[in-house]
């Protein structure tokens, strides 16, 4: 196993670049002994993880290891899948979100999500961004909030003159940033991102990476990615899932990429396996 201090991949690890790591960790989300089943198939096996506030937590692992499943557990989007069953605890500020007295609709208003495939509504750009606020009965200055969200998603400059045109007329990268704007407009605490850049070209992807960096100032970000460089660049913490839905390593990103405890993680990161 590697004992060198050099990163396993040829990318700088983020710890020194941002000031975020200096803050003390306060746990927002914690999974304890979390199991997820689709019918009889187990997709997650006793996952324990603590996700810190105002940090970027990356989730990496080979295809089918349960990354999306884990993300969907957090905002209970798994409820939409009939065959899905969740066991164990997943707490948000100490409250198990699977308790009977937790309304998933309320939970999702605090935990926003950006999907792997951009999925803007067939509505105008403005209405896409305003959607979350509208359904929550917001009656303040909508124009200002829409502009703020679009600026936050680094899209304002490109669309400010065409707010009334359909969100579907944008390019893939713009659509994804529109979805990010939609997710941040209602001002959630946590933003979940499932491979938000996998459908994008490198320029659009790097815009979104910059954006995630900024988002972490205000939000807790959990991001699934297949791109090791991206995980290393943007995240503070990294969770590595391996086949069978097991969380095999969870630590500071620098540690995971420079000196992982598990040899299998090292193999996965360096591309020898997975």
């Amino acid at each position, binding site marked *: 196993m590697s004992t060198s201090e050099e990163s396993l991949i040829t990318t700088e690890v983020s710890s020194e670049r941002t000031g975020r790591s200096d803050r003390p960790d306060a746990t927002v989300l914690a999974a304890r002994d979390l199991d997820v089943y689709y019918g009889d198939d187990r997709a997650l096996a006793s996952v324990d993880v603590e996700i810190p506030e105002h940090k970027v937590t990356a989730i990496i692992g080979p295809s089918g290891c349960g990354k999306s499943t884990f993300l969907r557990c957090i905002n209970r*989007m798994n409820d939409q899948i009939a065959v899905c069953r969740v066991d164990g605890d997943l707490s948000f500020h100490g409250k198990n979100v699977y308790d009977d007295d937790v309304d998933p609709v309320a939970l999702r208003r605090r935990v926003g999500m950006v999907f792997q495939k951009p999925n803007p509504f067939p509505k105008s750009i403005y209405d896409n961004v305003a959607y979350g606020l509208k359904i929550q009965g917001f009656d303040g200055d909508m124009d200002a909030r829409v502009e703020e969200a679009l600026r936050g998603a680094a899209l304002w400059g490109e669309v400010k003159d065409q707010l009334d045109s359909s969100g579907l007329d944008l390019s893939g990268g713009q659509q994804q940033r529109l979805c990010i704007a939609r997710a941040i407009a209602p001002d959630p605490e946590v933003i979940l991102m499932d491979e938000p850049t996998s459908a994008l070209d490198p320029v659009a992807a790097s815009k979104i990476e910059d954006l995630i960096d900024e988002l972490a100032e205000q939000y807790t970000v959990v991001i699934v990615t297949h791109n090791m460089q991206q995980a290393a660049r943007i995240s503070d913490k990294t969770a590595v899932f391996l086949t069978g839905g097991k969380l095999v390593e969870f630590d500071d990103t620098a540690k995971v990429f420079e000196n992982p405890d598990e040899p299998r993680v090292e193999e996965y990161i360096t591309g020898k396996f997975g």
Partner: protein
Amino acid sequence: MSDSPDSKRRADGGTATERTRGEELFADIDLRREHLKNRAFLGLIFAASMFGVVALALLLLDVVTDFYVGLTEFEISLVQFLTADGSRRPERAGFFGAIIASVMLMALTAVLSFFVGVGAAIYLEEYAPNNRITRLIKANLSNLAGVPSIVYGLLVLAALVNGIGVGPILLAGSVALALLVMPIIIVSAQEAIRAVPDGVRNGSYATGATKWQTIRQVVLPSAMPGILTGTILALARAIGETAPLLMIGALFVNRTPFGPFDRFSGMPTQIYAWAAEPSQHFIHLAAVGIVVLLTILLSMNAVAVYLRNKYETAV
């Protein structure tokens, strides 16, 4: 074949001197019989597809000839035809009352069937649990769509016209037509709702929308063009229906109805009544009526096609 294509190729390619001709290269493969079969079958299915078109064309030709003869020989004035009420005297009879009756029938039918139909479709697609009862309902919708229209007339005759005793009024007619087209509207609305990608549904839920908010704000707006197209096509079917109206007794009425509780005779029943008259003049009135009815019907279909094309690419 001559070798002119060959030499042309050589001129283009320049260097290709050793190219063999296709026929020589594949000389051992005989496809003549297969190609012959292809052509024979093509001819067969082309004839099949033309059969319907030719039959329709002949029908139209017949109607248009009668229409023309009506206008010239019997001197039916289109203006009078479209503005006069029905009459026992063929030279004074017009279609106005029937057109108004049909328009009112359509409006009432649309109101009665649209909300119930779309509501049922929303329930079946978005809420209904996937169990035996739901599957039974879904399977029987297409059966229901296949029930002969006269049966709906019979039902309304027994339940409303005679049962409650409202008589052969316009409202009773629209109830029969609404029942008739409801399965069609439900099925087409179901299809439109199902065509809304799950991605946008999930996007809405993940933004913190309730189920009804998602349906109301995202699913229905995206499905609406499809729902409207299906509704218009269903109404176009209803406007030409004769049997259920005959069944409830909407016939031999010459006056324009003024409200849903008036007696009436719609366009198809008026045409039916005229066509059954012995006088040639009445028969040609019927032909002119058919042209008017067909024009309205085709315009409705055109609107439906236009709507479908306009929104097809948008969602």
